[in-house]
Protein backbone atom coordinates (compact mmCIF):
# COMPACT_ATOMS: atom_id res chain seq x y z
CA UNK A 1 0.00 0.00 0.00
CA UNK A 2 1.25 3.44 -0.75
CA UNK A 3 0.86 6.90 0.67
CA UNK A 4 -0.15 8.03 -2.78
CA UNK A 5 -3.57 6.48 -2.29
CA UNK A 6 -4.72 9.15 0.16
CA UNK A 7 -6.82 10.79 -2.53
CA UNK A 8 -8.59 7.51 -3.25
CA UNK A 9 -9.21 7.06 0.48
CA UNK A 10 -10.78 10.52 0.63
CA UNK A 11 -13.15 9.64 -2.21
CA UNK A 12 -14.13 6.34 -0.66
CA UNK A 13 -14.63 7.92 2.74
CA UNK A 14 -17.05 10.38 1.15
CA UNK A 15 -19.08 7.50 -0.25
CA UNK A 16 -19.09 5.70 3.10
CA UNK A 17 -20.18 8.90 4.86
CA UNK A 18 -23.37 9.18 2.80
CA UNK A 19 -25.87 6.50 3.74
CA UNK A 20 -27.48 6.43 0.30
CA UNK A 21 -24.17 6.21 -1.54
CA UNK A 22 -22.96 3.65 0.97
CA UNK A 23 -26.01 1.52 0.21
CA UNK A 24 -25.28 1.68 -3.50
CA UNK A 25 -21.69 0.74 -2.87
CA UNK A 26 -22.84 -2.20 -0.78
CA UNK A 27 -25.12 -3.34 -3.58
CA UNK A 28 -22.23 -3.18 -6.04
CA UNK A 29 -20.04 -5.11 -3.63
CA UNK A 30 -22.59 -7.87 -3.17
CA UNK A 31 -23.29 -8.00 -6.87
CA UNK A 32 -19.63 -8.74 -7.50
CA UNK A 33 -18.69 -10.74 -4.43
CA UNK A 34 -21.95 -12.30 -3.26
CA UNK A 35 -24.26 -11.45 -0.37
CA UNK A 36 -21.70 -12.56 2.20
CA UNK A 37 -18.64 -11.42 0.21
CA UNK A 38 -17.38 -14.96 -0.13
CA UNK A 39 -18.38 -15.47 -3.77
CA UNK A 40 -20.76 -18.12 -5.05
CA UNK A 41 -22.24 -18.96 -8.44
CA UNK A 42 -21.14 -16.24 -10.83
CA UNK A 43 -19.52 -14.27 -8.01
CA UNK A 44 -15.90 -13.84 -7.06
CA UNK A 45 -14.77 -14.02 -3.42
CA UNK A 46 -13.71 -10.66 -2.09
CA UNK A 47 -10.07 -9.92 -1.41
CA UNK A 48 -8.52 -6.54 -0.80
CA UNK A 49 -8.06 -4.56 -4.00
CA UNK A 50 -10.49 -6.64 -6.04
CA UNK A 51 -13.57 -4.54 -5.27
CA UNK A 52 -12.13 -1.11 -5.95
CA UNK A 53 -10.40 -2.22 -9.14
CA UNK A 54 -13.56 -1.73 -11.19
CA UNK A 55 -15.80 0.22 -8.81
CA UNK A 56 -17.42 3.42 -9.99
CA UNK A 57 -18.24 6.18 -7.52
CA UNK A 58 -22.06 6.12 -7.28
CA UNK A 59 -22.20 9.90 -6.92
CA UNK A 60 -20.36 10.56 -10.17
CA UNK A 61 -20.55 7.22 -12.03
CA UNK A 62 -16.84 7.64 -12.71
CA UNK A 63 -14.40 4.82 -12.00
CA UNK A 64 -12.60 5.38 -8.73
CA UNK A 65 -9.36 4.31 -10.37
CA UNK A 66 -8.03 5.07 -13.83
CA UNK A 67 -6.83 2.18 -15.94
CA UNK A 68 -3.23 2.76 -14.95
CA UNK A 69 -4.14 3.26 -11.29
CA UNK A 70 -5.99 -0.06 -11.28
CA UNK A 71 -2.83 -1.96 -12.08
CA UNK A 72 -0.77 -0.04 -9.56
CA UNK A 73 -3.47 -0.44 -6.93
CA UNK A 74 -3.52 -4.20 -7.48
CA UNK A 75 0.26 -4.34 -7.19
CA UNK A 76 0.10 -2.43 -3.92
CA UNK A 77 -2.76 -4.58 -2.66
CA UNK A 78 -0.78 -7.81 -3.05
CA UNK A 79 -0.10 -9.94 -0.02
CA UNK A 80 3.66 -9.38 -0.28
CA UNK A 81 3.21 -5.72 0.48
CA UNK A 82 1.17 -6.26 3.63
CA UNK A 83 1.53 -7.40 7.14
CA UNK A 84 -0.65 -10.50 6.84
CA UNK A 85 -2.69 -10.00 10.00
CA UNK A 86 -3.46 -6.43 8.96
CA UNK A 87 -4.60 -7.54 5.54
CA UNK A 88 -6.88 -10.18 7.00
CA UNK A 89 -8.37 -7.66 9.41
CA UNK A 90 -9.08 -5.16 6.64
CA UNK A 91 -10.70 -7.77 4.44
CA UNK A 92 -12.90 -8.93 7.30
CA UNK A 93 -13.96 -5.38 8.16
CA UNK A 94 -14.79 -4.39 4.58
CA UNK A 95 -16.65 -7.63 3.98
CA UNK A 96 -18.64 -7.39 7.21
CA UNK A 97 -19.50 -3.72 6.81
CA UNK A 98 -20.72 -3.98 3.24
CA UNK A 99 -22.75 -7.14 3.83
CA UNK A 100 -24.24 -6.28 7.23
CA UNK A 101 -27.85 -7.39 7.45
CA UNK A 102 -30.66 -5.18 8.65
CA UNK A 103 -32.85 -2.29 7.61
CA UNK A 104 -35.90 -2.36 5.36
CA UNK A 105 -33.86 -3.21 2.27
CA UNK A 106 -32.31 -6.22 3.95
CA UNK A 107 -28.85 -4.72 4.27
CA UNK A 108 -27.54 -1.98 6.51
CA UNK A 109 -24.03 -1.16 5.41
CA UNK A 110 -21.79 0.24 8.12
CA UNK A 111 -19.60 3.28 7.66
CA UNK A 112 -15.82 2.91 7.31
CA UNK A 113 -13.26 5.70 7.61
CA UNK A 114 -9.87 5.06 6.03
CA UNK A 115 -6.78 7.02 7.00
CA UNK A 116 -3.40 6.56 5.33
CA UNK A 117 -0.11 7.69 6.80
CA UNK A 118 3.50 7.05 5.85
CA UNK A 119 6.22 5.57 8.01
CA UNK A 120 9.68 6.30 6.59
CA UNK A 121 10.99 3.04 7.99
CA UNK A 122 8.15 0.80 6.89
CA UNK A 123 8.73 -1.81 4.20
CA UNK A 124 5.22 -3.26 4.32
CA UNK A 125 1.83 -1.74 4.95
CA UNK A 126 0.02 -2.48 8.17
CA UNK A 127 -3.36 -1.41 9.51
CA UNK A 128 -5.25 -1.01 12.72
CA UNK A 129 -8.98 -1.73 12.63
CA UNK A 130 -11.00 -0.14 15.41
CA UNK A 131 -14.73 -0.09 16.00
CA UNK A 132 -15.84 3.40 17.03
CA UNK A 133 -19.16 3.46 18.90
CA UNK A 134 -21.96 5.87 18.11
CA UNK A 135 -22.24 9.12 19.94
CA UNK A 136 -25.16 11.45 20.41
CA UNK A 137 -24.30 13.20 17.17
CA UNK A 138 -22.48 10.63 15.06
CA UNK A 139 -23.16 7.09 13.91
CA UNK A 140 -20.88 4.20 14.75
CA UNK A 141 -18.17 3.41 12.25
CA UNK A 142 -15.11 1.28 11.65
CA UNK A 143 -11.78 3.05 11.57
CA UNK A 144 -9.12 1.51 9.32
CA UNK A 145 -5.84 3.31 9.91
CA UNK A 146 -3.23 2.27 7.35
CA UNK A 147 0.48 2.95 7.78
CA UNK A 148 2.56 2.34 4.68
CA UNK A 149 6.08 2.75 3.28
CA UNK A 150 7.01 6.21 2.00
CA UNK A 151 6.23 7.47 -1.48
CA UNK A 152 9.78 7.08 -2.67
CA UNK A 153 9.54 3.32 -2.30
CA UNK A 154 6.04 2.78 -3.50
CA UNK A 155 5.31 5.15 -6.35
CA UNK A 156 6.35 4.33 -9.91
Amino acid at each position, binding site marked *: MAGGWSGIATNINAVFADKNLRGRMGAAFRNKHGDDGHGGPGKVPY*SFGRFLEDFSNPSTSNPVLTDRQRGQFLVDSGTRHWDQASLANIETAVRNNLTRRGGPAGFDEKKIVFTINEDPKATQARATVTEIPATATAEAYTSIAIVCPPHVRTD*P
Partner: protein
Amino acid sequence: MTRRPIDPTVDLGQAANADRRRFLKTSAILASGLAVRSIVPGEAAAPPALPASCDLRAKNGNSYITSLKNQGTCHSCTAFGVVATIEGSYHLQKQKPIGGANPELNLSEADLFAKAPPLPRDCNVDHWWPRSALDYCIATGVPQEPAASAPFKIAAKQQLVASNPNDTITAMKSWICDDNGGPVTAVMVEYDDFLAFGVNRGTGTNDVTDVYDPGWDPHAPRPRLLGGHVISIVGYEDSHNGRYWICKNSWYVANNQPWNRNGYVRIKMKGDSYVDRIDVWGVKI
Protein backbone atom coordinates in the same frame (compact mmCIF):
# COMPACT_ATOMS: atom_id res chain seq x y z
CA MET B 1 25.93 -19.48 -23.55
CA THR B 2 29.35 -18.22 -22.59
CA ARG B 3 29.53 -14.62 -21.60
CA ARG B 4 32.53 -12.51 -22.37
CA PRO B 5 33.10 -8.99 -21.05
CA ILE B 6 32.48 -6.32 -23.56
CA ASP B 7 34.82 -3.46 -24.37
CA PRO B 8 33.88 -0.77 -21.85
CA THR B 9 35.24 1.96 -24.04
CA VAL B 10 32.47 1.39 -26.54
CA ASP B 11 29.76 3.79 -25.73
CA LEU B 12 28.53 4.80 -23.28
CA GLY B 13 26.83 7.47 -21.37
CA GLN B 14 28.54 9.67 -23.90
CA ALA B 15 25.80 9.97 -26.45
CA ALA B 16 26.20 13.19 -28.32
CA ASN B 17 23.75 15.92 -27.46
CA ALA B 18 22.35 15.83 -30.96
CA ASP B 19 21.75 12.13 -30.61
CA ARG B 20 20.05 12.72 -27.28
CA ARG B 21 17.82 15.43 -28.71
CA ARG B 22 16.89 13.17 -31.61
CA PHE B 23 16.04 10.44 -29.15
CA LEU B 24 13.86 12.64 -27.00
CA LYS B 25 11.98 13.89 -30.03
CA THR B 26 11.45 10.38 -31.30
CA SER B 27 10.40 9.27 -27.85
CA ALA B 28 7.78 11.95 -27.62
CA ILE B 29 6.36 10.92 -30.95
CA LEU B 30 6.33 7.27 -30.05
CA ALA B 31 4.71 7.98 -26.71
CA SER B 32 1.96 9.90 -28.41
CA GLY B 33 1.09 6.82 -30.39
CA LEU B 34 2.33 8.03 -33.72
CA ALA B 35 5.08 6.49 -35.75
CA VAL B 36 8.12 8.23 -37.12
CA ARG B 37 7.83 8.80 -40.84
CA SER B 38 9.22 10.87 -43.62
CA ILE B 39 6.84 13.27 -45.30
CA VAL B 40 7.01 14.16 -48.95
CA PRO B 41 5.63 17.65 -49.63
CA GLY B 42 2.18 17.49 -51.15
CA GLU B 43 1.71 13.87 -50.23
CA ALA B 44 -0.76 12.82 -47.60
CA ALA B 45 1.18 11.36 -44.74
CA ALA B 46 0.03 8.02 -43.44
CA PRO B 47 1.69 6.30 -40.55
CA PRO B 48 3.39 3.10 -41.60
CA ALA B 49 1.71 -0.03 -40.38
CA LEU B 50 3.44 -1.81 -37.59
CA PRO B 51 4.42 -5.38 -38.31
CA ALA B 52 1.99 -7.95 -36.99
CA SER B 53 4.77 -9.55 -35.02
CA CYS B 54 8.26 -8.80 -33.88
CA ASP B 55 10.68 -10.91 -31.86
CA LEU B 56 14.06 -9.45 -30.95
CA ARG B 57 15.35 -12.97 -30.46
CA ALA B 58 14.98 -13.50 -34.19
CA LYS B 59 14.82 -10.16 -35.94
CA ASN B 60 15.93 -10.55 -39.54
CA GLY B 61 17.64 -13.74 -38.49
CA ASN B 62 19.53 -12.15 -35.60
CA SER B 63 19.08 -12.22 -31.86
CA TYR B 64 19.63 -9.09 -29.81
CA ILE B 65 18.57 -10.59 -26.51
CA THR B 66 21.18 -11.74 -24.04
CA SER B 67 21.23 -14.98 -22.10
CA LEU B 68 18.67 -15.80 -19.46
CA LYS B 69 19.61 -15.05 -15.86
CA ASN B 70 18.30 -16.35 -12.58
CA GLN B 71 17.13 -14.05 -9.78
CA GLY B 72 16.85 -16.95 -7.37
CA THR B 73 14.62 -16.46 -4.36
CA CYS B 74 15.49 -12.80 -3.92
CA HIS B 75 12.84 -10.21 -4.81
CA SER B 76 15.20 -8.61 -7.28
CA CYS B 77 13.05 -8.77 -10.41
CA THR B 78 13.42 -5.03 -10.99
CA ALA B 79 17.19 -5.37 -11.34
CA PHE B 80 16.84 -8.33 -13.71
CA GLY B 81 14.07 -6.78 -15.81
CA VAL B 82 15.94 -3.49 -16.14
CA VAL B 83 19.31 -5.07 -16.95
CA ALA B 84 17.77 -7.40 -19.53
CA THR B 85 16.22 -4.37 -21.21
CA ILE B 86 19.46 -2.40 -21.19
CA GLU B 87 21.48 -5.31 -22.55
CA GLY B 88 19.01 -5.96 -25.37
CA SER B 89 18.74 -2.26 -26.19
CA TYR B 90 22.50 -2.03 -26.43
CA HIS B 91 22.76 -4.87 -28.91
CA LEU B 92 19.90 -3.59 -31.05
CA GLN B 93 20.74 0.11 -31.05
CA LYS B 94 24.40 -0.58 -31.74
CA GLN B 95 23.44 -3.19 -34.33
CA LYS B 96 25.52 -5.82 -32.63
CA PRO B 97 23.56 -9.03 -32.89
CA ILE B 98 24.46 -11.70 -30.37
CA GLY B 99 27.05 -14.19 -31.46
CA GLY B 100 30.03 -14.23 -33.75
CA ALA B 101 32.25 -11.22 -33.26
CA ASN B 102 29.85 -9.54 -30.85
CA PRO B 103 30.29 -10.62 -27.25
CA GLU B 104 27.25 -10.40 -25.03
CA LEU B 105 26.92 -7.38 -22.83
CA ASN B 106 26.63 -8.79 -19.33
CA LEU B 107 25.76 -6.26 -16.63
CA SER B 108 25.63 -6.90 -12.93
CA GLU B 109 22.10 -7.20 -11.56
CA ALA B 110 23.60 -7.72 -8.12
CA ASP B 111 25.36 -4.37 -8.25
CA LEU B 112 22.21 -2.58 -9.36
CA PHE B 113 20.18 -4.29 -6.65
CA ALA B 114 22.69 -3.41 -3.95
CA LYS B 115 23.36 0.20 -4.88
CA ALA B 116 20.41 1.83 -6.63
CA PRO B 117 18.17 3.95 -4.41
CA PRO B 118 15.95 3.85 -2.49
CA LEU B 119 18.16 2.09 0.03
CA PRO B 120 18.46 0.09 2.18
CA ARG B 121 16.99 -2.89 0.38
CA ASP B 122 16.99 -6.56 1.15
CA CYS B 123 15.60 -9.54 -0.63
CA ASN B 124 12.29 -9.39 1.21
CA VAL B 125 11.50 -5.87 0.07
CA ASP B 126 10.03 -5.82 -3.37
CA HIS B 127 8.59 -2.34 -3.67
CA TRP B 128 11.18 -1.09 -6.11
CA TRP B 129 9.96 0.46 -9.32
CA PRO B 130 12.07 0.52 -12.49
CA ARG B 131 12.22 4.32 -12.58
CA SER B 132 14.66 4.57 -9.70
CA ALA B 133 16.79 1.72 -11.06
CA LEU B 134 16.93 3.39 -14.48
CA ASP B 135 17.82 6.74 -12.96
CA TYR B 136 20.77 5.05 -11.27
CA CYS B 137 21.82 3.53 -14.60
CA ILE B 138 21.79 7.00 -16.13
CA ALA B 139 23.65 8.75 -13.33
CA THR B 140 26.06 6.11 -12.13
CA GLY B 141 25.93 3.08 -14.36
CA VAL B 142 26.26 -0.61 -13.74
CA PRO B 143 29.49 -2.59 -14.00
CA GLN B 144 29.91 -5.49 -16.33
CA GLU B 145 30.51 -9.04 -15.19
CA PRO B 146 33.20 -9.94 -14.56
CA ALA B 147 34.10 -6.52 -13.24
CA ALA B 148 35.22 -4.10 -15.90
CA SER B 149 36.90 -0.76 -15.38
CA ALA B 150 34.08 1.58 -16.28
CA PRO B 151 30.41 1.29 -15.35
CA PHE B 152 27.98 1.05 -18.21
CA LYS B 153 25.66 4.05 -18.34
CA ILE B 154 22.54 4.62 -20.36
CA ALA B 155 21.68 7.95 -21.95
CA ALA B 156 18.00 8.23 -21.13
CA LYS B 157 14.81 6.44 -20.18
CA GLN B 158 11.39 6.82 -21.76
CA GLN B 159 8.02 6.12 -20.16
CA LEU B 160 5.75 4.53 -22.77
CA VAL B 161 2.49 4.44 -20.84
CA ALA B 162 0.02 6.93 -22.32
CA SER B 163 -3.36 7.95 -20.98
CA ASN B 164 -5.06 5.86 -23.66
CA PRO B 165 -4.18 2.14 -23.36
CA ASN B 166 -4.28 1.67 -27.12
CA ASP B 167 -1.72 4.44 -27.55
CA THR B 168 0.48 2.69 -25.03
CA ILE B 169 0.35 -0.54 -26.99
CA THR B 170 1.19 1.26 -30.21
CA ALA B 171 4.10 3.03 -28.53
CA MET B 172 5.39 -0.23 -27.08
CA LYS B 173 5.22 -2.07 -30.39
CA SER B 174 6.88 0.81 -32.19
CA TRP B 175 9.67 0.98 -29.65
CA ILE B 176 10.31 -2.75 -29.58
CA CYS B 177 10.54 -3.12 -33.33
CA ASP B 178 12.49 0.06 -34.08
CA ASP B 179 16.26 -0.33 -34.41
CA ASN B 180 16.61 2.75 -32.22
CA GLY B 181 14.47 1.18 -29.53
CA GLY B 182 14.57 -2.35 -28.19
CA PRO B 183 13.06 -4.40 -25.40
CA VAL B 184 11.07 -2.60 -22.73
CA THR B 185 10.88 -3.05 -18.98
CA ALA B 186 7.35 -3.58 -17.73
CA VAL B 187 5.64 -4.02 -14.38
CA MET B 188 2.84 -6.56 -14.17
CA VAL B 189 0.37 -7.54 -11.48
CA GLU B 190 1.56 -10.86 -10.14
CA TYR B 191 -0.84 -13.59 -9.08
CA ASP B 192 0.22 -16.94 -7.75
CA ASP B 193 -0.95 -18.69 -10.90
CA PHE B 194 1.82 -16.96 -12.88
CA LEU B 195 4.46 -19.12 -11.24
CA ALA B 196 2.29 -22.19 -11.71
CA PHE B 197 1.87 -21.38 -15.42
CA GLY B 198 5.55 -22.05 -16.06
CA VAL B 199 6.13 -25.12 -13.91
CA ASN B 200 6.40 -28.62 -15.37
CA ARG B 201 6.77 -27.40 -18.92
CA GLY B 202 9.61 -29.73 -19.81
CA THR B 203 12.92 -28.63 -21.22
CA GLY B 204 14.10 -27.09 -24.44
CA THR B 205 14.58 -23.78 -26.14
CA ASN B 206 11.27 -23.33 -27.90
CA ASP B 207 8.49 -21.16 -26.47
CA VAL B 208 5.48 -22.54 -24.71
CA THR B 209 2.70 -21.40 -27.02
CA ASP B 210 -0.01 -20.95 -24.39
CA VAL B 211 -0.74 -17.32 -23.57
CA TYR B 212 -0.79 -16.31 -19.92
CA ASP B 213 -3.55 -14.28 -18.36
CA PRO B 214 -4.46 -14.38 -14.66
CA GLY B 215 -7.01 -17.12 -14.02
CA TRP B 216 -5.74 -19.12 -17.00
CA ASP B 217 -6.61 -22.44 -15.36
CA PRO B 218 -10.41 -22.67 -15.02
CA HIS B 219 -10.08 -25.67 -12.74
CA ALA B 220 -7.79 -23.96 -10.25
CA PRO B 221 -8.93 -21.80 -7.34
CA ARG B 222 -9.15 -18.09 -8.01
CA PRO B 223 -5.56 -16.86 -8.17
CA ARG B 224 -4.18 -15.04 -5.16
CA LEU B 225 -2.90 -11.50 -5.62
CA LEU B 226 0.76 -11.32 -4.60
CA GLY B 227 1.99 -7.91 -5.74
CA GLY B 228 4.07 -6.78 -8.68
CA HIS B 229 6.68 -8.34 -10.92
CA VAL B 230 9.08 -6.82 -13.45
CA ILE B 231 9.96 -8.47 -16.74
CA SER B 232 11.50 -7.44 -20.05
CA ILE B 233 9.28 -7.50 -23.13
CA VAL B 234 11.30 -8.58 -26.16
CA GLY B 235 8.60 -8.98 -28.79
CA TYR B 236 4.95 -9.28 -29.61
CA GLU B 237 2.41 -11.02 -31.80
CA ASP B 238 -0.66 -9.09 -32.84
CA SER B 239 -2.52 -11.05 -35.48
CA HIS B 240 -5.21 -13.63 -35.97
CA ASN B 241 -2.83 -16.04 -34.28
CA GLY B 242 -3.08 -14.12 -31.05
CA ARG B 243 -2.35 -10.88 -29.27
CA TYR B 244 0.41 -11.21 -26.74
CA TRP B 245 3.74 -9.90 -25.55
CA ILE B 246 6.85 -12.11 -25.62
CA CYS B 247 8.45 -11.61 -22.23
CA LYS B 248 11.83 -12.55 -20.80
CA ASN B 249 11.53 -13.65 -17.19
CA SER B 250 14.30 -14.31 -14.66
CA TRP B 251 13.05 -17.43 -12.94
CA TYR B 252 14.36 -20.94 -12.77
CA VAL B 253 12.65 -23.99 -11.35
CA ALA B 254 13.82 -27.34 -10.00
CA ASN B 255 16.97 -28.93 -11.40
CA ASN B 256 18.19 -25.53 -12.61
CA GLN B 257 15.74 -25.55 -15.50
CA PRO B 258 14.38 -22.23 -16.81
CA TRP B 259 10.81 -21.52 -15.76
CA ASN B 260 8.25 -22.12 -18.52
CA ARG B 261 10.67 -24.34 -20.44
CA ASN B 262 12.95 -21.62 -21.80
CA GLY B 263 12.41 -18.71 -19.42
CA TYR B 264 10.14 -16.79 -21.80
CA VAL B 265 6.39 -16.37 -21.54
CA ARG B 266 3.64 -15.05 -23.75
CA ILE B 267 1.40 -12.63 -21.85
CA LYS B 268 -1.95 -11.49 -23.18
CA MET B 269 -2.12 -7.91 -24.45
CA LYS B 270 -4.53 -5.72 -22.45
CA GLY B 271 -5.14 -8.65 -20.15
CA ASP B 272 -5.64 -8.80 -16.42
CA SER B 273 -1.91 -8.78 -15.71
CA TYR B 274 -1.85 -5.08 -16.68
CA VAL B 275 1.62 -5.64 -18.11
CA ASP B 276 1.01 -2.99 -20.76
CA ARG B 277 -0.74 -0.41 -18.59
CA ILE B 278 1.14 0.32 -15.37
CA ASP B 279 4.77 1.20 -15.94
CA VAL B 280 6.64 0.52 -19.18
CA TRP B 281 10.09 1.93 -19.96
CA GLY B 282 12.33 1.96 -22.96
CA VAL B 283 15.97 2.96 -22.69
CA LYS B 284 18.37 4.81 -24.95
CA ILE B 285 21.95 3.70 -24.89
